[in-house]
């Protein structure tokens, strides 16, 4: 699965979706009505990745998200419980997170698979796994894979400094690619991942970088560095914690690193792991 384009959109939580609509106008003339912040975040990231290119009509869209729509869900609950009125129809429809990949597909005229996927703490990795499952037998030959999460509404228990939308454009064809998703592998626990690392060097020492997801503790990162002998690619401190931080790190590597490889290790709260290997080709 070869990577042909990458996009990043990370910003302080938009108080008004109009801000995002203005950003989106820089990438497409298509007018979008009755869309909310979550959908706009997805559209900004996807269109920024595509940048006006025409995709194959059978291309697929895999949108990964930790929490899906938050703002409109909160609005609908407010309409129901506080205002005691029926929800606004499009507010209700837009509580469903798959409206976001729908609008991405509609605006780019891509009619292949269209999925909204999650995996607690590992959503982006799960999306990559499922996309590879479709790519390997040739069921899908071109796709957009994105990670989108809006910051929780104000007044909630959690406050995040930023929210984001990060996308990669992948094809089965290598010509013109800037990189490759070479491996996506799940492990039941730390021991199984360590055994895999020791079977054979995942990447030759000194010939790549190591990055760890937000849930990997500091002392464990040191251990993975020792085991792999790889230099560290650290992206976690850039913005602090936010839900799409893994996709931020991956796209940052692809946008900014010289020709090299990346081993990305992440875990969730239950101690299940996913390892990614990405190659960044020279320009």
């Amino acid at each position: 699965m070869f990577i042909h384009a990458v996009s990043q959109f990370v910003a302080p939580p938009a108080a008004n979706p109009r801000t995002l609509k203005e950003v989106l106008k820089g990438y497409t003339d298509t007018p979008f009505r009755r869309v909310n912040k979550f959908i706009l975040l997805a559209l900004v990231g996807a269109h920024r990745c595509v940048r006006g290119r025409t995709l194959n009509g059978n291309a697929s869209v895999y949108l990964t998200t930790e929490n899906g729509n938050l703002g409109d869900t909160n609005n609908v609950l407010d309409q129901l419980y506080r205002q005691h009125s029926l929800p606004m129809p499009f507010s209700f429809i837009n509580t469903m997170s798959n409206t976001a990949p729908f609008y991405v597909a509609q605006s780019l005229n891509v009619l292949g698979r269209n999925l909204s996927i999650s995996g607690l703490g590992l959503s982006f990795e799960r999306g990559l796994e499922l996309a590879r499952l479709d790519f390997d037998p040739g069921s899908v030959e071109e796709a957009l894979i994105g990670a989108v999460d809006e910051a929780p509404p104000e007044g909630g228990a959690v406050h995040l400094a930023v929210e984001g939308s990060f996308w990669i454009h992948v094809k089965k064809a290598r010509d013109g690619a800037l990189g490759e998703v070479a491996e996506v592998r799940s492990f039941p626990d730390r021991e199984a991942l360590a055994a895999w690392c020791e079977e054979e060097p995942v990447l030759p020492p000194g010939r790549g970088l190591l990055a760890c997801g937000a849930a990997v503790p500091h002392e464990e990162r040191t251990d993975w560095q020792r085991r792999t002998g790889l230099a560290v690619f650290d992206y976690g401190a850039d913005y602090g914690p936010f839900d799409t931080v893994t996709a931020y790190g991956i796209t940052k590597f692809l946008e900014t690193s010289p020709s090299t490889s990346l081993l990305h290790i992440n875990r969730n709260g239950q101690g299940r792991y996913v390892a990614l290997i990405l190659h960044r080709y020279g320009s």
Partner: protein
Amino acid sequence: MRNRAMIKGRAIACALGEDLDAVVRGAREMRPGIARLPLTLAGMDEVRPYYLLSRRGPESLSAAPETFFYEVLFDTVERALADASLRTADLRDLAIFFGSTAIDIPVYEHAYGQTLRETSRPASMVSSGYGRIADEVAGRFGIRGPAYTFTTACTSSANALLYAAAMIAAGRIPRALVIGYDLFSHLGFYGFESLRLIATDGYRPFDRRRSGIIMGEGCGAVVLEADDGGDAGAVLCGGANRVDAYNVTTHALEGGAIAQVMWDALEDADVEAGAVTAIKAHGTGSENNDRMEGNGMVRVFGDALPPFTVLKPLIGHTVGASGVVELILFTACLQRGFCPPTLGFEEADEALSLRPVTEPRPLSRGIFLLNFFGFGGNCTALVVAVRG
């Protein structure tokens, strides 16, 4: 025909009951249990029909929804795992594929309402993470395989089935637990009412007088493994997913994308259209859905449309759970010797000229097409072989 994954174990909770024999008996005898729920939260002095879980007590919609939510889920999963006779070591490798429309809304909307009673300005209540429910299942049963959550509206658990079977066939996992789960939520109930989609006078998919959907609760769990090549059981042969970009709330009436996903599914399963024994239609009972699905079926099968049926009048539209719940109900009925009927259908719609199965029809084996469609233009079709 490709045989990707067989159903090794299954369990269901729906309006017809939880014991599979009782559920099938309810389907054969066509006796659904429909509650009528008030719309008081929105200040309306009206009621709407709803297929609640058979285990619901009179107070259960308002009392401790989180406890009820996980009781139903864990109990259904436990029964499916027992039905599959999995050993503890097998559980460790199990991968989880979870599909739902509402996810944990039934839990946190209750918390929202409760907080509102205690303070004039309630804290924002948000999902605890779409992937959390699958992780709760993993934690409860000692499952260490990967967990994938699908939120594609009414196709959610159908897509979970599609990917679980594909992953088994590719040799990436030995077995999968696939769950479809949607409980009553105020957000969903009042949301569908806001769209004027709820039928008030009976559930009649494909009937001339159809007037909309009736929602239902459902939890279904299946354990899938690689096909053992035996001469019994139900096997997922293939399927497909694609998007109809016509509109976020409805599909194009001519049924082009609907037809294409059925063709894609048949091709994926390596099955000719003429080999299909019967179809389980999605059949929401809305004016547009039945018309576009009817048009799509005619595009694929022409004058040779196989018998088709709709299960929703028996158990309600279980939205994101319908993929797994309807798969279990449909295959269980076939394995007991009949194709379940489309309850409520009486008069054909002249614009469609289609007549579903209306009485239990003797049928125990064959190749079946199962359709699922949802908001966001999502289209999924599955091909299932039942070997008696």
